[in-house]
């Protein structure tokens, strides 16, 4: 049917009618107006069982829906804060992962805030895929009644920056929804900008919903999960590092640490599949090197937020100096006018590669400022990103380790022309603190990476490299709960003798029967490279048989290559063994994903 809007001043109402109608809607809030339009439309269609008071109660619930699409937990974290703020403002809030609603149900929502992250090359996170596809498809309904805004998380060093968020924003607009506030695109250091946007957007929503709030004094705090948590990203728990043990052999090309942290009396709890957020400090040596290079005084006071602290302290604890942002490269290119930097300014992928391979100090060293260029410390730090905590998939189950939490941390190491550099958090955990030292942590729950509720359900775990971490947690949990379901692990790394992470533990689990099968891919033990996806394909019959008997499949680890190759292998297996077309195989996998039987924790 036609939904062409009718103008009120057209002659469909006579003058009196019009005056009286206008008078009756004068005091209506935009929200009430929106509702009224629906009410009237329903009236026009002779929906006779609609009674006004009932409609007000149900069609216009004063509910703000917050949906997040999150891969690593960042978007979820922002969404949770947003929900907490909105609740505090008295709004009735419903917080959900996009994976938790049926795409069609979007038409029942009236007020929507979306927080969506973007994966590598512009893809939607797993839990957002279904809704994202639906809204850009022909099946998408008109959403004229919907008020919304989008916060997009991304990384400017990628070509398709914040693409998923942009897609949601534009698609909703196309479908007739009304934007409450402009979309905010956030780079990796999103905290401050996200807070500001949250405040703005909540004020707007509150205005829209104001009339309803009076009618409803129920504040649904309980619907927002975990916001009552004691320790958060902003308020982390200061834990004790118990152990940082290298678990790759002495001839390994990699340094992977098994880290044990004591959560002590914090009361922090986590489930297998969750991640631990770790705040870190930059190494003093690196800070010194940077300050020396810049000719600053480490005792100089600088302003960071509301406080004045020394430059040395600021660089150690407040700013990212191990990860270089493209903005910083831009800033430094402009300052230094160094040709090597100016040459790549317009080439995003070159910039990204340069930034990824040069820490801040390396940028500074390789392109020194000309003598006449002046730079002060405040100006310098303002060009840096604020430090952000890193998330590590938890490698233990509390059923097994109680108040401890274990991580599997790959030490990021690389060599520049004249120095060797370490990653910020991994370097901190590996070499920056002694055992017994303090580390600030918080738990980041991840409901999108959970063992099956049914202990009998078989699981297939694919976790090469440090991606094996959550599967150690899974097996500890399944052992503790005496879960009868079969467990199949695919693990890969460079070499059998040096890089077989937790080898002895898997051997024991195989012996005890907890681990049903293990398939290994050591890429450098033979001439041809062999990876986990190759092992999956070799076991195609059995993998498919497991899927057919209800197995859940989990993938953890590298997102840009491994997870894609594994997904391609799974599609091949499903297509060939299930005798399905490409499209049908794709639907099969989609169904698995929607049923939460295909879960990824990739980064």
């Amino acid at each position, binding site marked *: 049917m036609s939904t062409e809007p009718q103008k009120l001043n057209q002659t469909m109402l006579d003058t009196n009618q019009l005056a009286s109608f206008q008078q009756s809607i004068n005091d209506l809030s935009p929200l009430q107006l929106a509702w009224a339009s629906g009410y009237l439309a329903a009236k026009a269609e002779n929906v006779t069982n609609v009674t006004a008071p009932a409609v007000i109660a149900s069609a216009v619930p004063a509910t703000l829906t917050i949906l997040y699409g999150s891969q690593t937990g960042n978007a979820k974290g922002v969404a949770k804060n947003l929900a907490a703020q909105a609740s505090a403002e008295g709004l009735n809030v419903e917080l959900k992962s996009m994976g938790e609603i049926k795409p069609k149900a979007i038409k029942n929502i009236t007020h929507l805030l979306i927080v969506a992250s973007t994966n590598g090359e512009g893809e939607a996170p797993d839990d957002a895929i279904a809704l994202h596809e639906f809204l850009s498809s022909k099946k998408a309904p008109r959403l004229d009644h919907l008020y919304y805004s989008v916060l997009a998380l991304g990384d400017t060093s990628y070509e398709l920056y914040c693409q998923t968020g942009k897609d949601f924003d534009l698609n909703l607009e196309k479908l007739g929804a009304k934007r409450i506030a402009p979309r905010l695109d956030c780079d990796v250091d999103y905290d401050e900008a996200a807070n500001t946007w949250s405040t703005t957007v909540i004020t707007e929503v509150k205005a829209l919903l104001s009339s309803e709030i009076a009618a409803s004094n129920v504040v649904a705090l309980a619907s927002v999960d975990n916001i009552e948590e004691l320790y958060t990203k902003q308020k982390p728990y200061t834990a004790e590092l118990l152990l940082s043990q290298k678990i790759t*052999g*002495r001839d390994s090309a990699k340094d992977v640490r098994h880290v044990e942290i004591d959560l002590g009396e914090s009361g922090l709890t986590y489930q297998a599949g969750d991640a631990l957020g770790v705040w870190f400090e930059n190494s003093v040596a690196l800070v010194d090197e940077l300050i020396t290079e810049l000719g600053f005084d480490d005792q100089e006071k600088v302003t960071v937020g509301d406080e004045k602290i020394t430059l040395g302290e600021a660089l150690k604890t407040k700013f990212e100096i191990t990860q270089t942002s493209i903005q910083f490269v831009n800033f430094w290119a402009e300052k230094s006018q160094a040709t090597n930097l100016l040459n790549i300014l317009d080439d995003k992928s070159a910039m990204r590669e340069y930034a990824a391979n040069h820490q801040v100090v390396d940028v500074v060293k390789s392109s020194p400022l000309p003598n006449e260029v002046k730079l002060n410390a405040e100006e310098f730090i303002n060009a840096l990103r604020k430090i952000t905590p890193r998330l590590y998939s938890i490698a233990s189950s509390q059923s097994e380790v109680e108040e401890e939490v274990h991580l599997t941390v790959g030490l990021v190491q690389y060599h520049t022309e004249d120095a060797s550099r370490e990653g910020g958090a991994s370097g901190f955990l590996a070499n920056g603190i002694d055992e017994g030292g303090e580390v600030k942590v918080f738990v980041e729950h991840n409901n999108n990476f959970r063992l099956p509720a049914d202990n009998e359900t078989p699981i297939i775990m694919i976790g090469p490299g440090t991606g094996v971490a959550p599967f150690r947690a899974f097996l500890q949990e399944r052992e503790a709960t005496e879960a009868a379901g079969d467990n199949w692990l695919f693990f890969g790394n460079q070499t*059998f003798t040096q890089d077989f992470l937790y080898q002895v*533990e898997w*051997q024991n689990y*195989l012996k005890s029967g907890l681990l049903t099968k*293990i398939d290994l891919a050591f890429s450098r033990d033979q001439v041809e490279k062999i990876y986990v996806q190759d092992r999956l394909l070799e076991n195609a019959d059995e993998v498919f048989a497991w899927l057919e008997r209800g197995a859940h499949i989990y993938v953890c680890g590298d997102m840009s290559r491994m997870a894609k190759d594994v997904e391609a292998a799974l599609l091949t297996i499903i297509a060939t063994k299930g005798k399905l077309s490409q499209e049908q195989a794709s639907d099969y996998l989609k169904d698995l994903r929607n049923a939460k039987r295909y879960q990824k924790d990739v980064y």
Partner: protein
Amino acid sequence: MTDLTKKDQANGPLIVEGKHADNERLKAESNYLRGTIVDDLKDNVTGGFTADNFQLIRTHGMYQQDDRDIRNERAKQKLEPLHNVMLRARMPGGIITPTQWLGIDKFAREKTSYGSIRITTRQTFQFHGVLKPNIKLMHQTLNHYGIDSIATAGDVNRNVLCTTNPVESELHQEAYEWAKKISEHLLPKTRAYAEIWLDGEKIEGGTETGEVEPILGPNYLPRKFKTTVVIPPHNDVDVHANDLNFIAIAKDGKLIGFNVLVGGGLAMTHGDKSTYPRRADDFGFVELAKTLDVASAVVTTQRDWGNRVNRKNAKTKYTLDRVGVDVFKAEVEQRAGITFAESRPYKFTSRGDRIGWTEGFDGKHHLALFIENGRLLDKPNLPLKTGVAEIAKIHKGDFRMTANQNLIVAGVASEDKAEIERLARAHGLMADSVSVQRKNSMACVSFPTCPLAMAEAERYLPGLVTDVEAILAKYNVADESIILRVTGCPNGCARAMLAEIGLVGKGPGKYNMHLGGNVAGTRVPKMYKENLSEQDILDEMDALVARWSTERTSNEGFGDFVIRVGIVDEVKVSKRDFHD
């Protein structure tokens, strides 16, 4: 010439009754040495072998080992020990062709963790540090070059040694042929080796197919068994360390038969006085034609009478001491259908290799290279392994590995001598500075690869010899030498129990010191002091050499001296004298 008088002989039972040792079960259940080795090869979760297979692979010439230097480190890393295998090839008489040498050189370089070839006291080479995925490749590579490793370890007759006398070319050739024949005669007949490693045709089942072991039996031998062929007066193979020895008796340069010596063996267990090193007994002379019959008879008698209850007393030497030499000998005569004639006279005068050039009766030249510890490895500025490979590329004769862990470039024509020597010198294989003392010193492998090692041996010896050289120089006997052997455990691969000074590893940095062996290798040394540290050893040696240098009679060897002046008592009959 048995040492035991009637009074000393225990007329014990022919068969020891009791519950058999677990190794007996695993041999019996092994389906002729197959076990489940094939399954283990497919198991890529561990680099090791499981349960019985761990022992069974020994009969295929391999020991499971690991890098013991990093065992604890890896335990912390949640990694299993760095499992690998050591392979000991079967090379009767130690003869290897240049082509074969280049083949093993390449494998050692490319596929072993240590990149070395180790020449051992069993007159063969060992690969150390072969990872599981390379094991089959290793056997197939060896097979390609006509080499195998069947029965070089385990409860079987192991690699047969033969004196590497290149001078008496014809006699050596005959003796060598016998060493090969004896080795093949006593080999396990099971096809397990070919099936598992060479993808040989599979023969179903065990005994039903007629696969029997006519000599070794389905349960194989009670314990390891070692055989030599020796050409007096050179006792380089150390007959008294071996169960069965054929002493070549020649007439007019032609081999006519053998004196047979039975029951030598050096292994013992610390703290167990029922174990001791023991010399072999002379059974008498046998004609050539009966050689293999005698070999079978000795092996089957030991097979049937050896102690299968207590592995520590299972070797031939204990069987002899239990049933009596005469009883054992009579059984051998009966089984072989012979009567031993009286031993023909012979004399051993030396054991060491004549390092440097010698000329054979046939006019060919032979260059014996001193290889410290038998370890051929390229070290900085000392590319020993490459050196041998370079020689192999141009050499027209063959190589002979010696039981003293050295290597002889044998059969060099006069015109090729200069180039061979040039290569040897260029690669550090010939150094005029190597002392007599160093040439007469020997150590087993021990740490880091040997699972039995209790103390360092190969890594300890070079420095120890340097210190001993200084002591000899201090007392003006630098031109003299003492047969010095260090072994990492009492199992005794370096044959310390036939040395003038034998050091036996007891624990990290601790050794028992034995004194009183002789140059010919016909006397077992007696324990002098226990649990000596490296410094204690030097202090003791300083004092002993001081006395020897002043009190000895002319040319009196160190071992003879310490017995004559009463520093230790002579071990005449091991069972009686060794521990008292």
